[in-house]
């Protein structure tokens, strides 16, 4: 049976498929370790020494160092894993959601209180004109 990945035209969405799962393996594995207190402690005390263990790519290391939440998705990060790094930083899902959609956290919170990001205009790249509604800087999907 042919596998149709017709989800690729959904704007601003990184489906965690086989390729992303492979690409992001080491990044996600690093993030996963942060759900053990002893590991959080080790990462807090020596961030560079800690991340060196995981053999991440240079770009993955940059994303981790700079907390580039959207960048992590480009290199195979999965939100449930990368969010463990956000929890480590005491950030909420609104902080990370805002960062990924290039919105200030307060604007993001306000958008959620007003009912969230609308589906209209955000179904497909065609519908969104290659961009993402409501997002301040209208980033295009890679």
């Amino acid at each position: 049976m042919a596998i149709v990945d017709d989800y690729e035209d959904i704007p601003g969405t990184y489906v965690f498929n086989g390729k992303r799962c492979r690409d992001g393996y080491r990044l996600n594995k690093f993030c996963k370790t942060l759900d053990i207190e002893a590991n959080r402690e080790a990462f807090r005390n020596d961030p560079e020494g800690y991340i060196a263990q995981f053999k991440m790519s240079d770009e993955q290391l940059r994303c981790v160092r700079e907390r580039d939440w959207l960048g992590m998705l480009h290199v195979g990060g999965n939100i449930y894993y990368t969010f463990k790094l956000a929890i480590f930083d005491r950030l909420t899902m609104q902080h990370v959601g805002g960062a990924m959609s290039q919105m200030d956290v307060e604007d993001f919170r306000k958008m959620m209180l007003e009912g969230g990001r609308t589906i209209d205009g955000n179904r497909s790249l065609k519908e969104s004109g290659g961009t993402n509604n409501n997002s301040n800087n209208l980033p295009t999907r890679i």
Partner: protein
Amino acid sequence: MAKVVAGVGSSHIPALGAASDHNKQNEPYWQPVFEGFGPAREWIKDVAPDVVILIYNDHASAFSVELINTFVLGAADEYDPADEGYGPRQVPQLIGDSDFSSHLIESLVLDEFDMALANEMDVDHGCTVPLTVMFDKPDAWPCKVIPLCVNVIKYPQPTGNRCYNLGKALRKAIESYPEDIKVAVFGTGGMSHQLQGERAGLVNPEFDKNFMDKLQNDATELTKLNHTDYLRESGSEGIELIMWLIMRGALSDDAKESYRFYHVPVSNTGYGLICFDEPDAPHMQASG
């Protein structure tokens, strides 16, 4: 014999657990949400299940990227709340039922649903939040709990149709267990939400309402939604709703919706709660 007496569909948003744990129920943001739980909490007291089979997804807590299973059934006698990075939730340990789990796994595998089996597994917010929603903050959970995990993180998730049919096989497995116990099935996750990417924050109340409307009488229509339909219309994490279809599949065709609540937003999500009665369940006879 064991009997399916009720079903529940509920989102399992972690912030709900945190709001309960930190006693924020009466804050303006949370008050309407916890008020919405009230009737369901009263109802479940009448249902009084002996066992809840709780269908949810693990969020990189018990399982990781090393090994990704599509369906995992817990076979332990207890399950501890997982540390998701904040330290474990301070909620009671879950008491399982390993005899019943073993029976369910044997029945399901012989019925050609090849379940993975977990003899040890910590349970994260996906499992503990629906218990909070339904049972509030007891010293001990009022019934045994058997967790059933579904992969909804790694594409492709099982299809909605596969999930619905798993629910049917689960009903058969429950009904062939010789103990006289009352079983409720909880399908959790959803509703529409997207946590990731530039489209983060997406909520589609129309999709959610339609899903709830069809769950009682037109669930087979819902089984026709494919991955892209969910991803596109309900957000990348909205596909968790396939777990509600396992619950619906485990109920009879005659199951009746008895309560529904919907609220936007809870955290980044459209929150939905729906309760179903089996017409021949003891709590239905008692109330006439």
